[in-house]
């Protein structure tokens, strides 16, 4: 027991490998306690304190001979105490720097002498004598005592010991030993407390009694499979009351010591283990554990870490380090196996907790330990939602299990001990069970069948491999099984089989990969073992022959399975790239001509998944796949139609693709798909395709032949957001044609559209504002929008956190203000609206800046509002933006400056803010829009003579004269007016000089 002290001290420096005690708070605390103990011993048990150690404690001290006075023989360098043991050896002996001490009394005196350095001495002493207890009491004594029951009285212990080693001071020895042990416990308890107070993120305890089976839960709860309870206080959430049960870990209502029945009630879902639960409950923990997983599990930071990494072991290394499993989990496992001994893992033992059964401590990591995430592990993006870790379902009591469970377990035994014939026979028998059922899957897992099945994959026995894959491909529809297969390296073996000359095997292997590669790690494994290349190879076959030989038919089946596997794998960006590099795109294009739905679905599925990448979109267009996609839009399989529409949705960003869809008559089938309004996935894909296709005006005209707009307006209500985003996006495009604006109004589309302005989905808001803006260009529409208070709603979206929404809203405001009746009054009525606009000029997003400039230009047409804008400091903010090189921003900025000149001293204010010189540079931009608005702005600015001087100096006249030759009349006029003002000033100047 006394060894705990050393152990407690050890683990702090364990990782560094040397025997130093680091200067951590915890060690400091520990040293103080040891010091305190020696001092107390001297005072409270003077007799025991004189007990002579078996061996001397030896360490190098900082004390010198001169420090020792009364009670010592001091000669030159050597110091010996007057107190001697029975054989006349001094109890303390110093030969600098080495000191040896043989009793607690001497130790205490020495520490007294050390005065300021006491802690350092204790530290040196502990470092020098790691086996402290054995040195003090002798090894045999310690091992004897550890075997004995500490609770028996001293006398009976003495009798026993005397039998072994007759010596006079056994009694003192035992007493000291027991004292030490007691102290040890105290220190540990204090340590716990200390740590708790210190970090606040500790959770501890619960359970005062442990049953012989190792459970701490009351008996009537054990009947329900509960094992123990933990209370935990993470740093970022409320205290968590947790139940650990056979089924997993979950939150309870808060079990207090009084054991109210209601407290045991489950209030959360069941998690697989503590880590998973914590991940879900404490974002801070989740963030940290993610980083931790990737770090090596040894950590230099003290205490907190060792335990923490230990916790993770459960989760990550379950397979490799069975013995390292964390306590709670371990406990559960053991129970399942029928043994009930509760054994903390080695790391916990290091913490010195082996004897404080029933306590569970887990410390959450310090903030400082959070490192950057290594990139490779998390570099894969995925468009689809990843599978989440789900709570592991544990089989409860053996008696509840259905008979299939036991039958399968028996089969696994035959698998393990059978030759090829028995194995094949057993595999066939196993296939007769419903392998999609969880009981059967878990039965295989629990009996260790997965190992056998995976091992079979590496044999030369074709039949065994086929049988094994036929089972694996089914049971891996279970998420846990998938993960275990990957953990065991099974996926590598499956990938290897793709090279087999046996077609059945290839097809089965590909199908298995398709089912396993549903999570990121699996997909990465496939890629890293060259699986993508092999899968792409499988695609090579002739899919569309009228009659196929048996051999060719097999090839087609292999290709189909290959496509299924690629579909699963294509969820990761890197895999998409790998498929492309392996030459998969033309092969997929060839399979796209297949007449079979079961082939087309995985092929189009893969294509649409990959179409998120530009390279694929180009290839889909150039390889002529659009035609086939369009053809299959008219298939009678919803899923196939959905994937085709989705592929078109992603590809139709490109103008040529849009034209091709029209050319192959794909627009009508798309509109037809809108009729399947009950299949929301299909509807989302179809509306998405319509949206993107309608970016081309020709397509909109074509769509109108099929009355698409009327149907689309009808989809504005009662649809999920994924559909609404696309519907509204399409509306925005349709409304670019003025005839359509009226149709939208007549179909009653304005009201639901304005209603959507109150939503929160940012992608939707971007589209809604755009559509509202497009509609607002029609006066009649605008009247309705105004009436519905739409302008205020759009305006308030300027406060949205997304820059996209901000700019989109700002663009929408321009036509709203332009077309509203009494626009000036309306703008003024929006309290704080103008200030909001001016402040947005401080945005760092160029699109926001440009859109706000456009709004400013529109608002400034009203003199009164311009005055307010000026008061809010719009002039310096605009001037500040003039140094931009972005032509889009330049255009609207110049426009805003031109319009803002119309008030008070704004013209000279722009001059003072040095906005004129940069504007002159805009004249050289190769963008006629920029030239035009700049010329207008300069014309306005040139009404201030000082600005004219700047323009003249910056060489504005020459480009202005060139612009005067432009075809655009307004531009001509503005340029000429500006030049005129400059000339007038020059003339006035000359005249002034002449006459003065």
């Amino acid at each position, binding site marked *: 027991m006394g060894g705990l002290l050393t152990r407690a001290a050890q683990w702090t420096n364990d990782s560094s490998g040397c025997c130093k005690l680091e200067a951590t708070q915890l060690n400091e605390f520990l040293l103080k306690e040891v010091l305190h103990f020696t001092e107390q011993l001297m005072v409270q048990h003077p007799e025991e304190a004189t007990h002579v150690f078996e061996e001397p404690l030896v360490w190098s001290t900082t004390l010198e001979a001169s420090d020792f006075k009364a009670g010592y023989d001091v000669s030159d360098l050597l110091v010996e105490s007057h107190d001697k043991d029975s054989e006349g050896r001094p109890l303390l002996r110093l030969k600098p720097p080495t000191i040896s001490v043989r009793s607690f009394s001497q130790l205490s005196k020495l520490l007294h002498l050390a005065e300021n350095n006491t802690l350092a001495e204790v530290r040196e002493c502990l470092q020098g004598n790691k086996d402290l207890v054995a040195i003090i009491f002798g090894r045999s004594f310690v091992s004897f005592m550890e075997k004995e029951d500490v609770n028996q009285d001293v006398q009976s212990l003495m009798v026993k010991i005397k039998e072994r080693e007759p010596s006079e001071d056994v009694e003192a020895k035992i007493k000291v030993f027991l004292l030490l042990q007691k102290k040890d416990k105290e220190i540990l308890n204090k340590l716990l407390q200390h740590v708790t107070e210190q970090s606040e993120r500790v959770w501890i305890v619960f359970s005062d009694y442990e049953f012989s089976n190792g459970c701490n839960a009351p008996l009537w709860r054990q009947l329900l499979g509960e094992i123990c309870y933990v209370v935990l206080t993470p740093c970022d959430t409320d205290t968590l009351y947790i139940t650990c049960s056979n089924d997993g870990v979950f939150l309870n209502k808060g079990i207090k010591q009084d054991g109210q029945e209601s407290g045991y009630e489950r209030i959360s879902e069941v998690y697989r283990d503590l880590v998973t639960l914590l991940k879900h409950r404490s974002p801070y923990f989740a963030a940290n554990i993610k980083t931790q997983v990737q770090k090596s599990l040894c950590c230099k930071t003290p205490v907190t870490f060792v335990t923490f990494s230990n916790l993770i072991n459960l989760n990550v290394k379950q397979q490799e380090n069975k013995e390292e499993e964390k306590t709670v989990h371990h406990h559960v496992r053991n129970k399942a196996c029928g043994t009930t001994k509760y054994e903390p893992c080695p790391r916990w033992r290091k913490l010195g907790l082996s004897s404080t059964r029933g306590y569970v401590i887990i410390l959450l990591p310090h903030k400082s330990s959070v490192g950057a995430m290594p990139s490779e592990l998390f570099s894969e993006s995925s468009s689809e939602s990843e599978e989440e870790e789900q709570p592991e379902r544990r089989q409860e009591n053996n008696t509840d299990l259905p008979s299939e469970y036991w039958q399968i377990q028996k089969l696994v035994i035959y698998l393990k001990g059978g030759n090829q014939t028995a194995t094949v*026979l057993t595999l066939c*028998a196993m296939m007769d069970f419903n392998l999609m059922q969880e009981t059967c899957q878990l039965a295989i897992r629990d009996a260790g069948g997965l190992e056998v099945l995976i091992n079979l994959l590496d044999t030369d026995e*074709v039949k065994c491999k086929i049988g094994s894959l036929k089972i694996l491909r089914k049971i891996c529809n279970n998420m846990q099984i998938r993960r275990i297969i990957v953990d065991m390296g099974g996926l590598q073996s499956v990938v290897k089989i793709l090279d087999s*000359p046996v077609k059945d095997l290839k097809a089965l292997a590909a199908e298995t990969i398709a089912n396993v590669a549903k999570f990121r790690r699996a997909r990465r494994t496939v890629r890293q073992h060259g699986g993508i290349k092999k899968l792409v190879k499988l695609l090579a076959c002739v899919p569309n022959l009228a009659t196929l030989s048996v051999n060719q038919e097999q090839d087609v089946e292999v290709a189909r399975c290959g496509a299924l596997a690629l579909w699963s794998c294509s969820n990761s960006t890197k895999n998409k790239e790998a498929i492309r590099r392996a030459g998969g795109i033309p092969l997929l294009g060839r399979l796209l001509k297949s007449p079979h739905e079961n082939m087309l679905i995985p092929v189009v599925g893969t294509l649409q998944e990959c179409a998120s990448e530009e390279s694929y979109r180009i290839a889909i267009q150039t390889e002529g796949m659009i035609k086939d996609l369009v053809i299959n839009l008219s298939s009678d399989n919803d899923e196939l139609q959905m994937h085709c529409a989705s592929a078109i949705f992603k590809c139709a960003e490109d103008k040529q693709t849009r034209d091709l869809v029209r050319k192959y008559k794909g627009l009508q089938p798309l509109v037809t798909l809108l009729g399947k309004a009950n299949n929301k996935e299909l509807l989302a894909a179809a509306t998405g395709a319509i949206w993107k296709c309608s970016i081309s005006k020709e397509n909109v005209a074509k769509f109108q032949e099929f009355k698409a707009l009327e149907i689309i307006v009808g989809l504005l209500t009662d649809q999920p957001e994924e559909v609404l985003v696309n519907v509204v996006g399409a509306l925005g495009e349709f409304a670019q044609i003025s005839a359509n604006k009226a149709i939208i109004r007549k179909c009653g589309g304005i009201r639901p559209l304005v209603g959507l302005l109150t939503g929160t989905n940012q992608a939707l808001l971007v589209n809604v504002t755009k559509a509202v803006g497009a509609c607002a260009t029609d006066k009649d529409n605008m009247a309705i929008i105004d009436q519905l208070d739409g302008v205020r709603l759009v305006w308030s979206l300027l406060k949205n956190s997304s820059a996209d929404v901000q700019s989109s809203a700002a663009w929408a405001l321009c036509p709203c203000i332009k077309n509203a009746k009494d626009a000036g009054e309306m703008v003024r009525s929006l309290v704080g609206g103008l200030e909001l606009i001016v402040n947005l000029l401080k945005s760092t997003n160029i699109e926001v800046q440009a859109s706000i400039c456009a709004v400013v230009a529109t608002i400034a047409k009203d003199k009164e509002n311009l005055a307010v804008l000026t008061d809010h400091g719009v002039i310096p903010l605009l001037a500040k933006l003039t140094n931009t090189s972005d032509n889009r921003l330049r255009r609207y900025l110049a426009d805003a400056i031109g319009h803002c000149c119309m008030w008070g001293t704004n013209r000279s204010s722009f001059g003072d803010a040095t906005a004129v010189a940069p504007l002159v540079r805009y004249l050289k931009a190769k963008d006629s829009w920029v030239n035009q608005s700049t010329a207008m702005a300069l014309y306005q600015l040139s009404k201030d003579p000082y600005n004219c001087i700047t323009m003249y100096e910056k060489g504005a006249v020459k480009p202005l004269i060139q612009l005067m030759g432009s075809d655009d009349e307004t531009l001509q006029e503005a340029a000429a007016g500006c030049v005129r003002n400059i000339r007038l000033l020059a003339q006035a100047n000359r005249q002034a000089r002449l006459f003065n």
Partner: protein
Amino acid sequence: MSAMNRKVIQTLAENISKQVEHFSKTETERLIREFHVLLKEPMSNHPGKEAPGVDRGKFRNILHEDFGMTDRMIMDQVFRTFDKDNDGFLSVKEWIKGLSVFLRGTLDERIKYCFGVYDLNGDGYISREEMFHMLKSSLIRQPTEEDPDEGIKDLVEIALKKMDHDHDGRLSFQDFEKAVKEENLLLEAFGTCLPDSIVNTL
């Protein structure tokens, strides 16, 4: 080999290859030559005597060395299915016809062949006892078990459950055929008696 001999072999090959569908004439010719080479080797039990055909021992050697078979009983059964006239020797015709199914047989042919191999007493049924006999050494025996044969018996029951469609406690040819057509892996349910399927598909 003399010119005359070659001539004889060629005509023979032409003859036989017409009756056997899976081998071409050249292949047949090669197999005939192989047959004669085998004949030249001294007989295992009657050294020195010219044999009327390939005997059991020589045939077993081939099955073992070229096709990796190990089960003596199954190998003897394979010989019996080859040896149609039951004279203890394989004639040239028996040799080539047998190999034709053995190496290139269609699924139907192979089902018939395998059933013949497994029907140890040739009564047209694979009985429980026959299955037990063939599966006897297919499991590692656990010496601790009360009944060391329990596992084997269990396997027999598994096989019956899976294949005995008419529930008469034995496998008729129809039972066997139906089961194999449903699940090809069951073709060699009671022991390896065909070349590895890699060879098969090549």
